[in-house]
C-alpha cells in the first residue's frame, strides 16, 4: 500500500510514540489506515522488544593480542595501483624481451667478398630508432598507422668522391639499416657517386647496373650482391636518365615554364652538370684510372 509521505511519516511517529491518545486521534482522522497503524505499532514493539536487555557484565580485560583491522581504503587503493603498475611493467618487459625485431642479429652489417663482416653501429642515434621499423619504445607501432617503410625503401643520400665501392655499400647499409653481402667477384673499385634522397633499393640497382652486380633481396633486411647483371633489365628510377624522366613527369603541364615541350633534340637530352648533381649520377673510376 503506497501512502502519502506526510501520512506515512505521521503514522511512524504515532507507532513509535505508542500512546493510546495519539493512536485514537490518528484513527479518528484516518480510519482507513487503522489496520496499517496497528501493524506498525506491533512491528515497532517487536523491534524494540528484540533489544538485548543486558549484556553479561565482566570486568574489562584489554586484549593483549593484535586486533585485526580492515585495511584502510587508502592502502587498498595504493596496493591495487602498485599491482597494476607491476603488471604493466611486466607485460612491457616481456614484450620487449620476446620482440623478434630487437634481435641483436639484426644489426646492419656489410660482408665484403673477402669474407670479412663489419657491423654497422647505429649511425643516427635515437632519431634513427624512432623513425625506422625498429622501435623498442612502443609495443606495437603499427596499430592504426600506415604501413611502415621497408628498409630497402628508406631514402638515402650518397655523396662520394673517389670512394671504394665497399665503403659506399657500407654507407648504404648504415643509412637503410640493412645487411648487404657481396659475393666474390665484385671488384672493390673506386667510384664517385651522388644520390639525394633515393630509395636504397633503387640506388643498389643503379650501382649494380654500372658496376656489374645485381642485388638480390634475401629477406626484408638482407640482400646478396652477385657479380652479374641482367642486360635486358629496365633501368630503375634512381639516377641518370630514368630519374630525370621522373622529374619531368612531376612537372606541372599547365605551367608554361614547366609544361610538356616538344621532344628535345638528341643533343639537348644531356643534362647540364648541375642538374646531374641534383638528380643523381655515377662516375665510374677504377682504381688504376688515375695513373
Amino acid at each position: 500500500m503506497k501512502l502519502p509521505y506526510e501520512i506515512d511519516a505521521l503514522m511512524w511517529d504515532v507507532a513509535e510514540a505508542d500512546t493510546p491518545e495519539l493512536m485514537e486521534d490518528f484513527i479518528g482522522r484516518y480510519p482507513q489506515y487503522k489496520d496499517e497503524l496497528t501493524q506498525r505499532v506491533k512491528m515497532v514493539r517487536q523491534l524494540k522488544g528484540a533489544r538485548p536487555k543486558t549484556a553479561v557484565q565482566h570486568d574489562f580485560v584489554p586484549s593483549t593480542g593484535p586486533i585485526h583491522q580492515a585495511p584502510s581504503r587508502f592502502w587498498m587503493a595504493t596496493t591495487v595501483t602498485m599491482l597494476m603498475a607491476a603488471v604493466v611493467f611486466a607485460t612491457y618487459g616481456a614484450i620487449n624481451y620476446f620482440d623478434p625485431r630487437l634481435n641483436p642479429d639484426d644489426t646492419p652489417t656489410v660482408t665484403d667478398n673477402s669474407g670479412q663482416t663489419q657491423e654497422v653501429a647505429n649511425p643516427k642515434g635515437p632519431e634513427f630508432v624512432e623513425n625506422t621499423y625498429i622501435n623498442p619504445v612502443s609495443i606495437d607501432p603499427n596499430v592504426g598507422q600506415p604501413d611502415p617503410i621497408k628498409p630497402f625503401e628508406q631514402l638515402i643520400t650518397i655523396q662520394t668522391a673517389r670512394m671504394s665501392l665497399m665503403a659506399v655499400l657500407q654507407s648504404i647499409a648504415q643509412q637503410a639499416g640493412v645487411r648487404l653481402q657481396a659475393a666474390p667477384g665484385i671488384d672493390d673499385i673506386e667510384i664517385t657517386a651522388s644520390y639525394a634522397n633515393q630509395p636504397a633499393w633503387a640506388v643498389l640497382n643503379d650501382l649494380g647496373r654500372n658496376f656489374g652486380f645485381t642485388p638480390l633481396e634475401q629477406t626484408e633486411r638482407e640482400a646478396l650482391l652477385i657479380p652479374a647483371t641482367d642486360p635486358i633489365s629496365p633501368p630503375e628510377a634512381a639516377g641518370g636518365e630514368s630519374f630525370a624522366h621522373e622529374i619531368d613527369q612531376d612537372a606541372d603541364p599547365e605551367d608554361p615554364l614547366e609544361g610538356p615541350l616538344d621532344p628535345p633534340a638528341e643533343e639537348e637530352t644531356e643534362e647540364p652538370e648541375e642538374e646531374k648533381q641534383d638528380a643523381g649520377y655515377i662516375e665510374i673510376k677504377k682504381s688504376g684510372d688515375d695513373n
Partner: protein
Amino acid sequence: MSGIIDQHRSTAFDEDLVLVDRVLEGDEEAFQTLYARYNDKVYAIAKGIVLDADEASDTVQEIFTLVFRKLNRFDRRARFSTWLFRISVNRSIQQARKLKHSRAQVPLTEAAERIEDTSHTPAPDPEVGAALHKMHPQDRAVLTLFYWDELSLQEIGESIGCSPNAAKTRLFRARERFRVQYEEEIGR
C-alpha cells in the same frame, strides 16, 4: 551574563572526559567505569548489527580494547559516547561482513532459533530476527541506534558520520526495508 556562562559550563561539563583524562594518566579503574557505563549500549549495537550473541560479545571486547589502546587519538571534538558509538558501529559492520558468507548458508529458521537460544535475549519475535538478517548491516546499525540505544538523529548522524538530515533519511529507508522484510516474514 554570569548565568549564561555558568549554564554553558554546566552543559559543557562531561564526566566522561574526566574519566578519559584519568585513563590517559594511567588510571585503569577509570576505564572500568567507562566500560560499565557503556557496555550495554555497545553490546546492543554489536548485537543489532552482528546478530549473533557470541560474536557480539567478542566484538564488544574488541571495541573496548581498541578504545583503550587508541584513547589518545580521541580529539574531544565530539562527545566520548559519540566517538565510542562510531567505533562500535564501524567495528560491528566489519564483523558482520566477515560473517556474512557463513551466515548466508544457514537457513533462516535455524538462524532464528540461534537468536532464541542466546542467553542475552529474552526470546524475541523470530520474524524480527529473520527480517533483520535480510537487511544490510548499515541499515541494521541505524535501526539499532534509534530503537535500541534510543539516540537522537543528531547522535545517530555523528555515530555513522553524516548529518542529522541524512540520518533521518537513512532511518526512514531502513525502517521501510525492515517493514517490507517483516511483513514478508509474517506472511502478510
